[in-house]
C-alpha cells in the first residue's frame, strides 16, 4: 500500500449560505495521479483550492504528510499549482517566471540557472529563457506554468483544468506529456477536470464529485465498468441508463423483459437503476435475442457505428462495428456480466446525492 500524503477530514465549505462542500473526506497517496472529476459547480476546484491554501474550510481539517496544515498560508505549503489560465507574470520573461519561486527562497544564481535549463528541457522548451510569455502559444504558456511550478520541487502538483484553454490536438499531446512528467518526477499530481476522457486517460485514481459530495472513487476501470450510481454512469462515457426492477438475485426486469445478471443482494422486487454501455449491447437477428427492436438512426464514427435502436419503448444507444441499415429489424442481447445494477436512491437524503438533472429514464 502506498503512503498516505494528503487527507481531507470532514471538510465543509459554503459561500453566501450555499453549500459547496458537505462533510467531504478523502485520502491521496504518494506518487499518484489523482483526478477530481465532476461537472462545473461540483466542488472540485474548491477542494483543490483548500488543498492549495487559497480557501479555508469552514469546518474540518487538511492533513499533509501527517501535519495539520488547515491554517497554513499558501506560501508556506510544500505544493505548487498550475492555474487554469496559466497565470504567468507577463512583465517577466520565461526565465524570470521560472526563477520566481527560487529567487524568493534566495537560491544561488547558478542553481537557479541550472534549474531553469532543467525545467525547460523537461517541458521541451529549451532556449525559451528570454521569450516573453505573450509571444508564446497557449500550449507553450501552459508548459512554462508547469515548469515554473516544478522547479520548486513540490511534493504535490495541483493542476486546475490546465488543458481547458487548449485545442483538441494540443490537449491530447499535453495529456501524454503530463503522464510522462508525473512518471519522471515521481510526485503526486492532483488534477481537476470536467472532461471524463481526460480523467480516464491520465489518472491512477479518479474521484467523481457532484454537488459537494464524492459520488464514487476508484481506478478508471472501476469507475467506467462499475459505476455505483446513475450519476457516475451517466457522467462517465456514453451509457444506456434505465429504471428497472430487481426481481431476485441474478435476474433483473428491464423494460418489462427479464434479463439474467450477475448481481446479488438488492432484495426481491426492489426498484433499481441499471446501466448498459453502448458497446455491450449486441444486435442479433430477430428471434435470437432477448428483446425485439428496430434500428432508427445510424452515424459512422470512424472506429465504429453509433446506432439508435427502438426497443421496449426505449431508445437504446449501441456501438457496433457492423453496419445496419435504418429500419432493420433486430433483437437486443446483453451478456449478464455487462448489466450494471445500482441502488436507486429512496430517501430524500440520498436523493440529494444523485444528479440534479435526471438521465433519460423510462418508466418500468
Amino acid at each position, binding site marked *: 500500500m502506498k503512503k498516505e500524503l494528503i487527507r481531507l477530514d470532514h471538510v465543509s465549505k459554503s459561500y453566501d449560505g450555499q453549500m459547496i462542500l458537505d462533510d467531504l473526506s478523502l485520502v491521496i497517496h504518494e506518487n499518484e495521479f489523482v483526478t477530481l472529476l465532476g461537472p462545473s459547480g461540483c466542488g472540485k476546484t474548491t477542494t483543490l483550492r483548500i488543498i*492549495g*491554501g*487559497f480557501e479555508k474550510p469552514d469546518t474540518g481539517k487538511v492533513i499533509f504528510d501527517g501535519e495539520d496544515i488547515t491554517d497554513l*498560508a*499558501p*506560501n508556506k505549503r510544500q505544493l*505548487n*499549482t498550475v*492555474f*487554469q*489560465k496559466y*497565470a*504567468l*507574470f*507577463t*512583465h*517577466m*520573461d520565461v526565465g524570470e517566471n521560472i526563477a*520566481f*519561486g527560487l529567487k*524568493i*527562497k534566495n537560491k544561488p544564481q547558478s542553481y537557479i540557472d541550472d534549474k531553469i535549463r532543467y525545467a525547460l528541457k523537461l517541458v521541451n522548451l529549451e532556449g525559451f*529563457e*528570454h*521569450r*516573453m510569455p505573450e*509571444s508564446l502559444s497557449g500550449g507553450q504558456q501552459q508548459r512554462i506554468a508547469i515548469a*515554473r*511550478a516544478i522547479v*520548486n520541487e513540490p511534493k504535490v502538483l495541483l493542476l486546475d483544468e490546465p488543458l481547458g484553454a487548449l485545442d483538441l490536438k494540443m490537449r491530447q499531446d499535453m495529456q501524454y506529456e503530463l503522464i510522462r512528467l508525473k512518471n519522471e518526477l515521481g510526485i503526486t499530481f492532483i488534477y481537476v477536470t470536467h472532461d471524463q476522457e481526460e480523467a480516464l486517460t491520465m489518472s491512477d485514481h479518479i474521484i467523481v464529485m457532484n454537488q459537494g459530495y464524492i459520488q464514487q472513487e476508484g481506478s478508471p476501470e472501476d469507475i467506467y465498468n462499475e459505476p455505483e450510481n446513475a450519476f457516475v454512469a451517466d457522467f462517465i462515457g456514453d451509457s444506456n441508463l434505465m429504471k428497472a426492477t430487481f426481481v431476485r438475485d441474478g435476474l433483473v426486469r428491464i423494460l418489462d423483459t427479464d434479463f439474467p445478471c450477475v448481481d446479488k443482494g438488492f432484495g426481491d422486487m426492489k426498484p433499481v437503476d441499471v446501466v448498459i454501455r453502448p458497446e455491450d449491447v449486441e444486435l442479433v437477428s430477430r428471434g435470437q435475442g432477448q428483446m425485439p427492436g428496430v434500428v432508427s438512426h445510424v452515424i459512422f464514427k470512424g472506429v465504429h457505428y453509433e446506432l439508435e435502436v427502438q426497443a421496449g419503448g426505449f431508445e437504446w444507444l449501441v456501438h457496433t462495428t457492423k453496419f445496419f441499415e435504418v429500419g432493420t429489424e433486430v433483437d437486443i442481447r446483453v451478456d449478464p456480466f455487462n448489466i450494471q445494477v445500482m441502488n436507486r436512491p429512496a430517501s430524500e437524503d440520498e436523493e440529494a446525492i444523485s444528479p440534479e438533472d435526471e438521465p433519460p429514464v423510462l418508466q418500468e
Partner: protein
Amino acid sequence: MRKTLEKIYMALILIFMYLPIAVMIVLSFNSSKSRTVWGGFTFKWYVSLFQDSTILNALANTLLIALISTLAATFIGTLTCVAMSGMKRPGRAFFTGVSNIPMINADIVTGISLMLLFRALHFDQGFATVLLAHITFNIPYVLLNVWPKMKSLSPSTYEAALDLGASPFLAFRKAVLPELGPSIVAGSLMAFTMSIDDFIITYFTKGAGFDTLSTMIYAQVKRGVHPEIYALSTLLFAAVVTVLLLSGKVRRRSGVPKKSSDYQKQRVKTKILAAAAAAAAGAIVVLGLLYGGVFSDAGNKVYVYNAGDYIDPSVITQFEEETGIEVVYDEFDSNELMYAKLAQDDSAYDVICPSDYMISRLIQEDLIQPLDFDAMPDATQYIGQQYYKSAQAFDPGNQYAVPYCWGTVGILYNTKMVDEPVTSWDILWDPKYSGQILMQDSIRDCLMVALKKDGFSANSTDEAQVAQAAQDLISQRPLVQAYVIDQARDKMIGNEAAMAVIYSGEAIYCARENPDLAYVVPDEGSNVWIDAWCVTKDAKNKENAQVWINFMCRPDIALKNFEYITYSTPNVAAQEEIEDEQIRNSPIAFPDQSVLDRCETFVYLGEKADRMYSDYWKKIKSGS
C-alpha cells in the same frame, strides 16, 4: 482627389488644434507688449519671467501641489483598487459609483463644498487646503485608469505568486504592481495634468497670499496678461511635449528585446532612470515644503488684499526687509469679488485696496474701520490735498481711505483717423465713425458716458435720466465695433479702431506704444476714479496694516509703484521725482485742476439703484 481632400481635412484639424498655441508661442517672442503688433524678436520675456518672483512663486506652488497631490492620489487610488478587487460585487459597484462623483460633479460644487468644509473645521486656507482638495479630485482619475486594469487582472496572478512562496506583500509588489505599472503611470500623469489645470477648486480652497499659476493668471486678466505668461506657457507646452516624446520612446524600447544582454542593459537603465526620477521628485517635494513655508508659523504678519498686478513686487520684499513684518499678499480681480470675500470673513485680510464706489459701500456696511492718521505721517504729508477732497465723495470725513492710484476716463483716439478736435462725448455718436468705436464693457463706465453727455450726474439714481442714457446707448449700438475691457489697448495700438472709451492709465501705455494716439477728457465731464487703502473692520493686525499704508505713501515707494503700474499717483512728492519729463508733465497722467473739477467719483448707489442699472444694462447689451 480624395487623397487631397483627406490631406486638407487633416491639415484643418491640425490648424484648429495647434494654431492657438502657435500664436501664443509667437507672442512670447514679440518685443512689443501688443497682441496685434509685431515689435521684433526678443527673449526679454523669458528673462524677466525668471526674475518675476510672483510668477516663479506661483509656478513653484503649482508644481509642488501637482506633484504631492499626484503622489498621494496615486498611492491612495492604487490601494483603493486593491481593496475594491477584494470586495463583493455590490460593494464594488457602490465604490466605483461614489468615486466617480467628484469627477462628474461640477468643479464649482466641489470647490464650494470643500471650502465650506475647511471653514467648518477651522482650517487655515492655504497650501494645505489646496493640496487636500487636489488629492481629493485626483483620486478618481487614478481609479479611472488603474481599476479597469485591476479588474482585468486574473486573481490567479496574485495567487500564483503566493503559491510560489511569496508573502502577500511580496506577491503584490512583484506580481501585481508591475502589471498595474503602466496604468498607474497613466493615472498619475492624468492626475498631474488635472492638478496643474485646475482653477475653480483651487480658487475656492486657497487662502490669502497663496496662488497657483491658474489663480495668479486669472487675477492678472483684469489688467491684461503679461507677455511673461506667454513665455511661461510656451515653456510648459515644450515641457509637456518633451515628456510625451520621452514616454513614447521608453514605451517603444520596452518592447520585446532581441538579445538578452540588451534586455539586461535596458533593465539597468530603466532602474537608474526610475531611481533618478524618484530622487528628483523627493528633492523637489522637500525643497518645496521648506520653500512653501508649510512649517513656518504665525508671526509678525500683515495680510494684504490688492487688485491684480497692482504693485511693484520688489516693494513687498523691501517692506519685509525694512520692517521685519511678513507680508501675506493676495490679489483680487474685481471689486465685487473682493467684496464677496470680505462679506464672508473680513478678518481674513488686514489691508485692502478697493475703488471709490466700493469704499462707500464698505463704509455703509461697516466692513472697514477709521484710520489713525497720526500713525501714518506720510499719508498726510505726501498725498495731495486735492485727492483727499475728491475722495470725500465716497469717504465724507476722510476717515477711512488713503488714495493709492487714480485716473480719469476719457476718449483715446487715433489722430490719423480722426481729423476734427475731440472735445465732447458726442463724437461717439457720429455715424462717420461707424464700426470704429470701442466702448467699455462695464455698467457704470458705459452709463457714465451717456449720463455725462446728457448733462446728468454719473451717480444719478433718477430713473428717467438713466432711462434716457440707456436709450442713447441703444441707439449708439450700430456704430460700436465692440464692447471690450482690455482688448481696447491692443486694438488701439494696432490701429484697428479710431476711438475708445478708456482709462487714463491705459491711455498712457497706448500713447507710448503708438504715438498717433491722443487722450482727452471731454468737456461735459467724466469719471475720476480713486483706488485707496483701507483697513478691514476686524483686522487682526491693524498696526501693521497702517505701517503698510504709510510705507506705500513714501515718495520713493510711490514712485516705484507708479513706474510699474503707470496709473497716476496721488503722491505729490513722487510726481515731482518722475525722471521722464514727458510723463512728469503728461496731461494724461496729471491733468490740470480744471479737468479734475469737472469730473465726478463714483459712489455706491444702493441696492435699488444697482438693480435699476443692471436692468438697463441688460437692455443695452441685448439692444432692445
